[in-house]
């Protein structure tokens, strides 16, 4: 049951739109920064396959400029 965190960077002026699209996806938990154009995103899926599918879905969101995966505190080189 993978849980993964990301930083989602919107295209210019598209922060709210991106937030709405991410929030509409059940497996996503999105928290926007108040003073920067970036959204902290956590995905929680049931399997690796489902996670891969979700990743593909996320990459089709037009307001999304860049999705940068963030590992947990105790994972390989990532910070």
């Amino acid at each position, binding site marked *: 049951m993978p849980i993964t965190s990301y930083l989602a960077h919107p295209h210019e002026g598209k922060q709210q739109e991106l937030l709405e699209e991410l929030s509409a996806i059940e497996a996503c938990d999105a928290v926007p920064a108040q003073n920067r154009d970036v959204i902290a995103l956590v995905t*929680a899926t049931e399997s690796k396959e489902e996670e891969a599918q979700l990743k593909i879905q996320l990459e089709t969101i037009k307001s999304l400029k860049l999705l940068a995966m963030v590992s947990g505190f105790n994972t390989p080189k990532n910070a």
Partner: protein
Amino acid sequence: MYQSVQTNRRDFIKKMAMLSAMTAAAGMFPGIIFAEEQERGIPTGAQLDWKKAPCRFCGVGCGVLIGTENGKAVAVKGDPKSPVNKGLCCVKGYHSIMAMYGKDRLTKPLVKKNGRYVETSMQEALDLVASKMQETIEEHGKDAVSIYGSGQWTIPDGYVASKLFKGCIGTNNVEANARLCMASAVTGFLTSFGIDEPMGCYEDIDHADTFVLWGNNMAEMHPVLFSRLLDQRLKRGVKIIDFATRTTRTSMAADKSIIFNPQTDLAVANAICHEIINNGWMNNAFVQEHCNFRKGLTNMGYGLEDNYKFTDKPEPVSLKEYKKFLEDYTPEKVSKLSGVSVKDIKYLAAHYGDPNKKVMSLWCMGMNQHTRGTWINNLVYNIHLLTGKISSPGNSPFSLTGQPSACGTVREVGTLTHKLPHGVVMNKEHREFAAKIWDVPAENIAPKPTYHTVEMFRALDRGDIRFMWIQVTNPMVTMPKLKRYRDGAKKEGRFIVVSDIYPTPTTDIADVILPSAMWVEREGMYGNSERRTQYFEQMVEPPGEAMSDTMQLIEVAKRMGFEKQFYYKDETHIEEIYNEYRRHHDNKKHNMAPLEVLKTQPGAMWPYVDGKETKWRFNAKYDPACSNGKDFHFYGKKDGKAIIWQRPYEPAAEEPDAEFPFWLGTGRVVEHWHTGSMTRRIPVLHQAMPHAYVELHPEDAKRMQIRTGDSVKLTTRRGEITLPASVNERGVPAPMQVFVPFFDENMLINDITLDSFCPISKEPDYKKCAVKVEKA
């Protein structure tokens, strides 16, 4: 962040993942605010009372706002008004309030009777502490009692401890754990400038073009400050150079990572000076006007034997002699010793030497926990002095601290054996000055220092010290060569008092355990790395009979007959103590801001003169204490000049050999505060980093067929320990080196470390000893 009720494991992991993302964002965008998350979980309609405080943890001194409701702290957020962190917090800061609410919080005094701890009242426990101390003094003399505090002591805690022991009892047996973390920084400042603490401030970060991190994993140890460096790179394209013995998160984020062999930073620093002079980059006018050259004794030893003593004998040298000395430190010669390429040595020197670049050097434990810690501090100052890149915005050698009040309490109040709040015990005028304010006879204050920390615990082992009171620190995890000192503390005829908030390996050796009030459960002040003093009020009640360390000391002092000196009223004692303390620093070089100023703003930097803080000391443009009529005045020295020291490379106390072929270094991780006694009780932090490990280089691991998670046995001349391996994870040591964090009381790495120390600062070297590594 709100302290939620216990959620299920999946929700818990999701929360951790969200925190990871926010922490990463904070590293990229300093000052970023996730207000929705920070306030999530706060009960609907909650009427939170937000009050400011400095963070409880590291020496950066971030300003936080604490939300309380119904007598409990329930939320934390970064204080956007704080010039230190501008609204940002690290993972520890966001969870700081949870450290107050661990299940096993100490709430009642415990007294050991027939091998078992028995609850008693605070009044009875304090009676016992006072009577035991008096009894020990009567039987064994005043130098048989001692106090060991910390850089987590508030300013009033340390002040009353020093007043009681040095002024009233008359022993200089006062030490603090800051001896283990920044004593070399102090002696570095004193030998180079004659006065302690950085000349610059965090605002230097906004002006510097190049940052050189000397053995300093800022990304984990000072994450908020590091994010300010990253922010400047985004805005201005500054360069960050990580100069270290191990690849860390800092190395990965830096523009350039340069790895050197342990101990050879001494040689590389001299090589940089060689290049500066050889290439004509020396600022001749600055050096001629503001610097002297000196050399000291060499081959000082390493303090490994009991009662080791060393006193340096400085002698003047000429620039010509200094240049001759540097001929042994050409990049070519130093490259062979240090493992740093000639090109990289020249690269470092070129950044310092470029007259159009402002350079900030930053360091912490890598340079301080070093058997030649004072020397390497001197050598980095040499680089800045030779180029004149000092005491001006962006040109700043900056020694960082690891604890919230290592500067404020230990260095400024002077809770080390040789120190007084103003000056040193060896100086008659300083003793008389302190005695007058303390209202004690001047002859009460002994003119000789007694024991520095390592020697204090050796004295406890030998029986020269019979009574030790330990407050807000955990030496039974942090002392090097720990087994000796643990066994010593347990010997018959020793009486140990420990004031803390949770059970620890140190409370395990106690005869009396006093429950302490923590942080905003009492009133106090901390002083951070940039000379900023910050006030916090009491926001919640401490649990049970827990009492502030300040008040514990006052109560014991009164019981010992010092009512006159400890005249403070319960309701105003912090204000009275702070006002009394300010009198020690009532001069342009160190004046402290009035309490009413500290109450209304997120701290103030000293010297605070005519209603203004001083950002850059020794620079006449900014510092009203400069009085020599020149552009710079290093007024810590009588002639107003700083010293460029001729200090050679010397090897470490113990280096790898055929039997113990690896280097062992120790350190910290971002999730845990020092020994983990608080942060390991915060579920999200404990889960994120549940236990210690040993990092190996992948080539070594492959050769030894060790994979992540495998058990690895480490053996030194002091003993052995088994830990799980970590290969290619967070940090990667150089080949034939291993690294172990020290936060885990179940894997006490200090059982096998070495108690060698810098002969000048007496600070132990936790970064270097020889170890055998085997798959268990």
